[in-house]
């Protein structure tokens, strides 16, 4: 390799935020046609570095070098012109706009001054076909699942023909199949000379696709390695600075009373299509009931209906012995529910509120946080300080707005709040989305500990590994129905995979068994 191969270089970049040194003399380079993975704990400074390369933040010091020439990027306009595209960790999509409008925004095609939506939709369909990314240009973004939104973001970058693409945790919300597709697309792109910076917390993915891996820790580069020279445990300890146990350790469950009973639930989505089509199941205290399934099979709406965020069309929901069908969120929460929502920024946090305030979002009006309608600030602060310590939330103080936290640390604020309350039932949708391996280890331990304290856990996750590692029983959802419920210790990846594809085990058993 010669120096000419380097298309983009960050040179000794330093960036301070109030109370945080987010990047401390960071240097990293990107070669033509390579996939350069960037790993690091939550809050290590990955997104900050990428935002600097993309022109959203100005570095305090250091240079950006593009094709051997030092350049100054004032705004995303400059970086787009320089051929840099970025898929942001938190989507930069406008919910009220259609997919086509979102994709063309900033790079519009017009015909005699009028937006040419048709031409754009056509181009989107072509790209979608060419790369096997399923997107409907006419759909409203606000009605799409997070996975679909992620695909829109990827198409948005492809649409602009970027030759340097930054992907900030694109796989956090993708299903394993979608991730595979993304990797295929990434390879397709690099074969054409596009260079990619790929951020993820999933070590397997890094080892599978990266040409080089740079690990960041606490704002600095901890080292750059080749996948061949390393393995998962080594990467994990490089990131976290200690050894990480990558498997979940737990005793067999001892389920007791029923804490959640769902009978013949039917729910409509935003387009009035029935996406939950007669679902019944129950969760007992002291067990983890996992719901597996390819995303978009109704899991989102199931969680929303159970927590009162979405009206139900039919059916019954009994929580801790109380009928909560059709009730709004507060009475449901008061029966003893904790909820980790799928979309942390939309349903989990008030981004402009401080970390401390977000940590009492469900119980600020109850003792000890309020007395006679007056907020007890010391209690709120005390609670925040304890949770920040226990859950290792990286924040300069309890008083900064949560919008200033890194993505993973925002997730930790929600998890800390929900796991620390005395509840009977926990509904967790993608609880470890976007968390680093160290934090996942801790949160998995906490969820198991909650189970052992007698809490019933409904775990919804697109990560088959997570479902299999934590659950005691596993239900598989397919097209709004539960295909089957199996015991976790009897389930295999293959058998679940078939159910997720809509093939019943009896059918497979029949097909597989030799006829007598």
């Amino acid at each position: 390799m010669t120096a000419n191969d380097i298309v983009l270089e960050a040179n000794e970049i330093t960036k301070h935020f109030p109370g945080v040194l987010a990047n401390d003399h960071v240097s990293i380079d990107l070669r033509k046609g390579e996939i350069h993975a960037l790993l690091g704990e939550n809050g290590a400074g990955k997104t900050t570095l990428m935002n600097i390369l993309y022109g959203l933040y100005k570095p305090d010091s250091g240079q950006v070098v593009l094709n051997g020439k030092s350049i100054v990027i004032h705004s995303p306009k400059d970086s787009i012109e320089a051929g840099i595209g970025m898929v942001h960790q938190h989507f930069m999509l406008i919910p009220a706009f259609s997919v086509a409008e979102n994709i063309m925004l900033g790079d519009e095609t017009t015909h005699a001054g009028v937006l040419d939506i048709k031409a754009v939709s056509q181009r989107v369909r072509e790209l979608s076909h060419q790369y096997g990314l399923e997107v409907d240009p006419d759909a409203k973004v606000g009605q799409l699942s997070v996975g679909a939104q992620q695909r829109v973001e990827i198409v948005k970058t492809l649409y602009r023909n970027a030759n340097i693409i930054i992907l900030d945790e694109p796989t956090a919300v993708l299903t394993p199949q979608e991730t595979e597709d993304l990797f295929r697309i990434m390879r397709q792109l690099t074969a054409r000379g596009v260079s990619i910076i790929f951020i993820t917390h999933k070590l397997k993915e890094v080892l599978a696709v990266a040409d080089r891996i740079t690990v960041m820790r606490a704002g600095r580069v901890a080292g750059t390695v080749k996948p061949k020279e390393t393995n998962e445990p080594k990467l994990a300890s490089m990131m976290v600075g200690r050894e990480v146990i990558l498997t979940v350790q737990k005793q067999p469950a001892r389920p007791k009373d029923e804490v959640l009973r769902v009978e013949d639930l039917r729910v409509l989505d935003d387009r009035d299509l029935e996406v939950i089509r007669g679902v019944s199941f129950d969760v007992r205290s002291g067990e983890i009931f996992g719901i597996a399934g390819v995303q978009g099979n109704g899991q989102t709406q199931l969680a929303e209906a159970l927590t009162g965020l979405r009206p139900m069309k039919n059916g019954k929901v009994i929580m801790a012995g109380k009928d909560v069908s059709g009730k709004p969120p507060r009475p449901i929460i008061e029966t003893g529910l904790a909820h980790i929502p799928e979309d942390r920024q939309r349903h989990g946090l008030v981004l402009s509120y401080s970390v401390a305030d977000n940590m009492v979002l469900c119980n600020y009006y109850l003792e000890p946080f309020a007395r006679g309608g007056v907020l007890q600030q010391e209690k709120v602060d005390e609670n925040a300080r304890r949770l920040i310590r226990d859950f290792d939330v990286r924040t300069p103080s309890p008083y900064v707005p949560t919008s200033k936290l890194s993505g993973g640390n925002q997730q930790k604020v929600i998890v800390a709040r929900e796991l620390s309350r005395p509840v009977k039932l926990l509904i967790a949708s993608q609880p470890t989305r976007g968390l680093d391996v160290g934090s996942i280890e801790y949160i998995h331990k906490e969820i198991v500990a909650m189970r052992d304290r007698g809490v019933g856990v409904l775990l919804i996750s697109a990560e088959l590994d997570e479902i299999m590692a934590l659950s005691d029983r596993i239900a598989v959802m397919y097209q709004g129905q539960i295909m089957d419920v199996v015991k976790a210790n009897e389930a295999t990846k293959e058998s679940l995979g078939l159910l997720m594809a809509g093939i019943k085990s009896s059918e497979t058993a029949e097909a597989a068994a030799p006829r007598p």
Partner: protein
Amino acid sequence: MDWRRFAIIALIIVVMFGTVVLIGTSQNSPLVIITSMMATTIAVATPLTLGALSGIYCERAGVVNIGIEGMMLGAAFFGWLAAIYMNTIFHYPAMPSLIVGVIAAIITGGLFALLHAVLSITFKVDQIIGGTVINILAAGITGFLNRQLFFGAGSVFHGQIPNAPGVLPTIHIPLLADIPTVGRIFEQQPIAISAILLVIITHFVLFRTRWGLRTRAVGEHPRAADTVGINVIRMRYMNVIIGGFLAGLGGAYFTLEAISSFEANMTNGRGFIALAAMIFGNWTPFGAWTAALVFGAAQALQINLQFFRELIPPQLAVLQNSYVVGLAPYLLTMLILTGIIGKTIPPAADGKVYEK
């Protein structure tokens, strides 16, 4: 707004007109009553429509503007003053003076808007406060100058209010205006006609052009707009100023089209009603226009009920009470619009300062 709601609103307007027709039928022919009510409706709706369009540009770009009232008042005064200066001091004929007046009004609106933009976008002052500043400032300046220039001892015009150059002439829309009786509806003054054209233009700009797409993006999710290379600050500035121009034109209506004089606080809350029309219309030009027309029709109802007071049958004696009738436009508008329009959704980032 869907067609069903539109039909209900149209029906209500028909009922309002019908009531007056029934009451006044012994004195005037229905056609005459209806055309005169329609003319009133359009006239009353003109400044409201322009004010609402002004608000739409600002708020679609994410800047709340409650200073429209002040912008219209300021524009009404300075537009009028410019026309008088042109006419009485520089001795230009009426028409050019009026045109200069309208231009001056538009520029005044733009300058007030620039102030609002500087306060709320650059200095990140709370947008409600920025708007309030403009309202107070406009009331103060116009009241003060009006007194000093026209009434004070040693004032420029020596206590004599000069004969203004009159009002903008009516334009006959060819063919349509020639229809007997109903043709009267198509005889309108230029600002009223512009208001209607601007509704159509604004709809087109907002929903069909690049400018509109970017404007809405900046008002919905400024950060997302920023990441695709759109200059959020610039878009917001421009739209607030465009809004100011429209409010300025709305102000010109009061002193250069409706009547040819200025009174202190003569906009009399119309800027706020325009904002209500914008909200009722769900931040869309046609929606806002409909709301403005509903208010105009209710106003026409009020005027005509007072006119036909003697003829109101005893069963409807409440309608003879001038307080009840005076409240009618406001009550009716509120009831109709809240009941029928239902929930409205403002732009997601409306009123929020953009910080990187």
